[in-house]
C-alpha cells in the first residue's frame, strides 16, 4: 500500500519526507517550493482529473466532513468556505469547486495538534458544488455542497 501517494503534497519520491520536515519546522518554505505545490493537481481542468491526481482511490462521502458555507453567495469572487472534519488523525484537507476552470482551490496539511477546522474564501465562476476531500488515517473522506452564486448588479 502506497500511503505516500495519497498525501496531497505532490512530490517526487521524497514526498512524505519533505512534508514531514516542513511540518517539524526543519525546512524553510522556499527551499523546495516547486516540490511543495502540487502543480498537476492545481492545473487539472476537471473535478475528476483533480481528484484522480490527489487521491488514487475512490473517496467515500462521509457525514463526518462538514462544509461550513452559505447556500447562496451574493458574489462569486468571495465565497466563504469552512471545513470541519470530525475524524481522528486528519492529515490533510482539499477544497475544490466543481465548475471552476481549475477546480482545485486549496490544500491544507494538518499536523498533529491542529484541529481539522479551517476557513478560507474562494472564487466560484458559477453556481456549482464545492467538494472537500479529507485524508484521515490513510483513508479519503468526501463531502459536497452546492453553493448558488447570484448574478451581478448594474452594468458598467
Amino acid at each position: 500500500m502506497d500511503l505516500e501517494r495519497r498525501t496531497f503534497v505532490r512530490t517526487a519520491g521524497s514526498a512524505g519526507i519533505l512534508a514531514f520536515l516542513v511540518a517539524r519546522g526543519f525546512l524553510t518554505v522556499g527551499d523546495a517550493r516547486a516540490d511543495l505545490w502540487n502543480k498537476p493537481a492545481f492545473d487539472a481542468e476537471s473535478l475528476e482529473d483533480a481528484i484522480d491526481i490527489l487521491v488514487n482511490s475512490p473517496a467515500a462521502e462521509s457525514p463526518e466532513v462538514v462544509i461550513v458555507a452559505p447556500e447562496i453567495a451574493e458574489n462569486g469572487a468571495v465565497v466563504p468556505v469552512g471545513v470541519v472534519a470530525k475524524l481522528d488523525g486528519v492529515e490533510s484537507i482539499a477544497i475544490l469547486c466543481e465548475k471552476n476552470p481549475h477546480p482545485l482551490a486549496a490544500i491544507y496539511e494538518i499536523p498533529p495538534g491542529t484541529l481539522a477546522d479551517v476557513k478560507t474564501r474562494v472564487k466560484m465562476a458559477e453556481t456549482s458544488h464545492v467538494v472537500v476531500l479529507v485524508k484521515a488515517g490513510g483513508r479519503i473522506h468526501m463531502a459536497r455542497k452546492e453553493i448558488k452564486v447570484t448574478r451581478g448588479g448594474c452594468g458598467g
Partner: protein
Amino acid sequence: MAKPMKVRARNADGVTDVRILMRHDMESGQRKNSDGDIIPAHHIQNVTVRHQQKVVLFAQWGPAVSKNPYLAFKFEGGTPGDPIEVTWVDNKGDSRTDETMIK
C-alpha cells in the same frame, strides 16, 4: 513589495484560534486586460504558520483563492504571549512573513 498581513491569535480553553488576512491580488489567470490579453496568474502558493518553530498549518493555494485571502484555523496549545509566525510565498517568488503574539 509585499504588504503586511493582519494576524490575530487568541487562546481560549487551551485552543488557539488563528485568523489571518493577507494582502494579495490573487490574479486568477482567467481575466483579460483592456487589450484583450490574458493577465497572467499571480497568486500565493504556500502559507506556513508556525508556533514556536513548529508548523501548525501548511497550505497550498491555487489562483481560485479569493483576492486578499482569509485563512482561519485552530490548534491545541499555545499560551498568551507566544509568537505566531505566518509566511506566504507566491508563484513569482515574492514572500512575506509577519508575526503576532497570542492573546
